[in-house]
């Protein structure tokens, strides 16, 4: 166990971080909680209303629908992007110029402002003049942006385009940590490609896949800008995700109480899922040695 002097030093080193996080994160979140427990008229006087807003949000069918849409979107994104990312990483050349080139180009979509990602895909599916919509028309299908299924497919394609590289890069790095001796041993045992993947590569990828899963879940679950640029929640409400619903309630209707309750519920889901991943990522790693000492 560390001494008191060490404690003091540790907190001293942490103090700039704590001040910044309190200003930009803790106080704002405390205010959201405060809003969610009060009713207000134009932000002037606050009247305690207990859990009224929570009951209203949790009982609202629009909220349930938005939550289901967001969860569905995240699950679809993970189900497509994790296997695809692993597969591509397995097929990447290990070294050489080509390998370097792939990695640089793969990273480009990750570096784009989300709003630009939205525009790119919007331009790809413009009726009559979009590359993707016209290509699909050439195959004899109608790329109908009034069809919720088509819009969902476009959003998933966009998200896959934007983020699969993250999984690829992580898995590529994870695969590099496997010593050659493992593969030699597998070759002596006459292990097939699947056996190598199942018993050597996949176990080694466990940690990077957890990190990839965590980051992909979070970023798809909070998707806002790209989805808004592309579809504005439509057609109808078919792509009205949780964050769109939240921004709509909090900033456009300026409904602080309801928006606050929604934000707190939203944050709770995020934190619980993050914890599930985190508790599997960290104990196996550096913090473990500290817990032991």
């Amino acid at each position, binding site marked *: 166990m560390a001494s008191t002097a*060490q404690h003091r030093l540790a907190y001293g080193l942490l103090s700039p971080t704590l001040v910044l996080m309190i200003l930009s994160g803790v106080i704002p979140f405390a205010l959201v909680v405060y809003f969610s427990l009060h009713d207000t008229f134009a932000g002037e006087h606050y009247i305690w209303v207990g859990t009224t807003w929570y009951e209203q949000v949790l009982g609202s069918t629009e909220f349930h629908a938005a939550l289901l849409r967001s969860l569905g979107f995240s699950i679809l994104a993970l189900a497509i992007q994790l296997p695809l990312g692993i597969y591509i990483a397995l097929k990447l050349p290990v070294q050489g110029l080509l390998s370097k080139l792939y990695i640089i180009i793969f990273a480009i979509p990750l570096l784009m402002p*989300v709003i630009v990602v939205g525009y790119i895909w919007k331009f790809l599916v413009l009726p009559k003049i979009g590359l993707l919509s016209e290509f699909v028309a050439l195959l004899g299908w109608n790329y109908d942006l009034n069809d919720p299924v088509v819009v969902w497919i476009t959003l998933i394609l966009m998200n896959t385009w934007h983020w699969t590289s993250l999984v690829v890069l992580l898995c590529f790095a994870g695969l590099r940590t496997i010593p050659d001796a493992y593969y030699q041993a597998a070759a002596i045992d006459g292990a097939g490609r699947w056996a190598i993947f199942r018993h050597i590569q996949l176990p080694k990828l466990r940690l990077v896949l957890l990190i990839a899963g965590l980051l992909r879940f979070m970023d798809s679950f909070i998707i806002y800008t790209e989805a808004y640029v592309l579809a504005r929640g439509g057609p109808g409400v078919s792509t009205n995700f949780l964050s769109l619903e939240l921004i709509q309630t909090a900033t456009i209707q300026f409904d602080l109480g309801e928006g606050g309750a929604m934000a707190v519920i939203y944050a709770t889901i995020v934190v619980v899922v993050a914890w599930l991943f985190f508790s599997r990522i960290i104990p196996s790693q550096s*913090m473990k040695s500290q817990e032991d000492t």
Partner: protein
Amino acid sequence: MNQRFSIVPVFYLAFLLIPLYWLLTMSFKPMKEIAGQLTLYPKSPTLNHYQVIFSDSSWYLGYLNATIYVLMNVAICLAAAIPAAYAFSRYHFFGSRSLFFSLLAFRMMSPAILLIPIVQIFSDLNLIDTYIAVALAHCFFNLPIAIWILEGFISSVPAELDELARIDGYNLATYFRKILLPEIAPGIAVAAFFCFLFSWTEVILSNALTTIDVKPIGAIMSRVSSVFTANVPILSAAGVLTLIPGILIVILVRRHLTRGFSMGRVD
């Protein structure tokens, strides 16, 4: 492992590049060509849209504004994250694990959740439409990332080095400057890269916290898009220009990129 040439990455490369190619062609096509019919490449390429951006301060200042607050954010995050990451890496203090997780939890929160109170706080502080407001607001998601990445890098520096430095009479500040920082230089570069990335691509908060003088390019683009179709080519050109800083930096930190994405924990 021996590997044969695989076509799979080539397909993926094409999937990534075609949409980028489309953005690029759109930015060089005159409006008439876009509205007319689908053309696979610009038949009569023009630089007009780029000219508009470079000659109109309400456009090009958007890039400058974003660059300024992003660089401020990177500087603030690194200055706070380096000592914090060192504390997490070296000391097992009370609450260290839950504090580490709480930081991560903030990284996971959508700007949408904290939007209203953040705008209120910065307007109470009279900081609306200033660079520092956006730079500080972006800390809640960037600072945890920077700490997490740096903690991984610092943990790979043997703690014996700390001991040796102390025996040699270095105090903590000299130790940081002379030994630790050069050791973890790649980690600092990667952390800076990720702070840059997330601050540069964020638009909800940076739009809400700025009104006139400090409007970043993303917010300018979203305002222009309300009269949509007429602006396809200029939005494309503006979009192409937003790619440049990211591409430059990725080439610089390429070797350490994957380690950064995994927050310093690859194996």
